[in-house]
């Protein structure tokens, strides 16, 4: 399978790799939202950590990803896109935008879905930690 140049670039130079601490530490920090989606047996696990200010602006983002090149690129791109946005703005990011930006083929659409899900999961985690009601939204794949 041929990858788009953008996928190859994110694969070779992934942006914002890492975490804000060990998984046990970030669990209790109210300024960090953590989203882990996927499962090892499915071949994809994405971990997104967002550092969010008290007024809901995403200051920084870090990711780790076990998955194919498209999954790595999707999560790397997601960190670039969420930085500087408010959580509500970040929730507007749709997987189709990721598909378009990275020119993902149909068989790789699930990678972009996973990236969208990781943003949602990380923001929900941050909201829960800060006592903000999470909007009930039907979100099934």
């Amino acid at each position: 399978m041929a990858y788009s140049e953008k996928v190859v670039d994110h694969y070779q130079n992934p942006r914002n790799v890492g975490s804000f601490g060990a998984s046990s530490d970030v669990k209790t920090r109210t300024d960090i939202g953590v989203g882990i989606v996927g499962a090892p047996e499915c071949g994809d696990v994405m971990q997104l950590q967002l550092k969010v200010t008290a007024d809901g602006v995403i200051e920084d983002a870090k990711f780790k990803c076990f998955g194919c090149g498209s999954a790595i690129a999707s999560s790397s791109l997601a960190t670039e896109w969420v930085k500087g946005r408010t959580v509500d703005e970040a929730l507007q990011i749709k997987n189709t935008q990721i598909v378009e930006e990275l020119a993902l083929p149909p068989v790789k659409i699930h990678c972009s879905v996973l990236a969208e899900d990781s943003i949602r999961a990380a923001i929900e985690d941050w909201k829960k930690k800060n006592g903000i009601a999470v909007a009930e939204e039907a979100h099934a794949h």
Partner: protein
Amino acid sequence: MAVKTPIYLDNAATTRCDPRVVEAMLPYFSEKFGNAGSRNHRFGWDAEDGIETAREQAAKLIGADAKEVIFTSGATESNNLAVKGAAEIYAKAPAGQQGRGHIITCTIEHKAVLDPCKRLQREGFDVTFLEPPADGVITAEMVRAAMRPDTILVSIMWANNEIGTINEVPEIGRLCHEKGVIFHTDGTQWVGKMPTDVERDCIDLLSWSGHKMYGPKGVGALYVRRRKPRVRLEALIDGGGQERGMRSGTQNVTGIVGFGKACELCMAEMEHDRERLLKLRRRLEDGLSGRMEVVQVNGHRDRRLPHISNISFGFVEGESLMMGIKEIACSSGSACTSASLEPSYVLKGLGVGDELAHSSLRLSFGRWTTEEEVDFAVESIAKAVEHLRKLSPLYDLYKEGVDLSTIEWQHH
């Protein structure tokens, strides 16, 4: 020494045609272009001579008589002809009825055996799909335990194409002869690489392919035993009655000539090739195990073909790993390399955890693979694994001492 890239480590998929094979084929494209079925002129005789020489060469490689070799378009056709052709002839009840007979095969066969067996299942045959143990070896005991009074056919591959493990083929053959059951084995990865003797090994039907042993693509053979017992087959392709009526159609003369030459070369160079390949495999596996942690060689440690190595690299997904080793041509058991998004059914069949199945590479060596190329591969793979483990949340968890199986993952 600088190596020339890309490096080809996918010889279990196909091999480069040996230049000596190409040389032998050339006259049959030009001056000896005849149809072997033309019985009354020079052109036909030349073509027929070419085919009969190839038949002798093929038979010699497996310890058979030339009359017992049928040429086909490849191992897929040979497997189809063997499995469907034998089932039809030895069926206990006519087409359209149930209870037509019992067939034994295993879950990690190539699709060219599995799918014909599944078709037969729909057509009134009972099929037992043996599940291999963790080391991947199908034993005679497993086959014996599955035998029934109405068993008509056993089809167990000689060696597995993804992991290279070697099944108990002579033992299974002896068991089948003892029980009066026809025994077919898919020898695609075995024949030409390992000593083969259909008499000693008690084989009734043996499939193999040209392009896996430095011959051309589009040509294969099926050994069909003629004595003790005389094995009969229902043809799949009807027509001019070529190949003893078992495979009609004008013979692929150039392909068959190349196939024969490839058999002859394999026979002459087998011992030498085998030792070289084994050394390369050891060099690769030792090199990788020495460079990083959580590396698992899949399949039986010793009962394995010398030219195939299937390795899982923990916490790293196979397709992304292949992206990082673009200079190396190999295969992955990862779901993402197939359209189905399912990881290798062979590795799953072995009980290799799904995440390790997603993390696997198959590297396979051939006649022209060098030590320098293997060293280059070790270096590239080690670098790519290192890069990807830095990105891997699973590696972090492993480093933190978290048991991955205790985590509740969010499945899709």
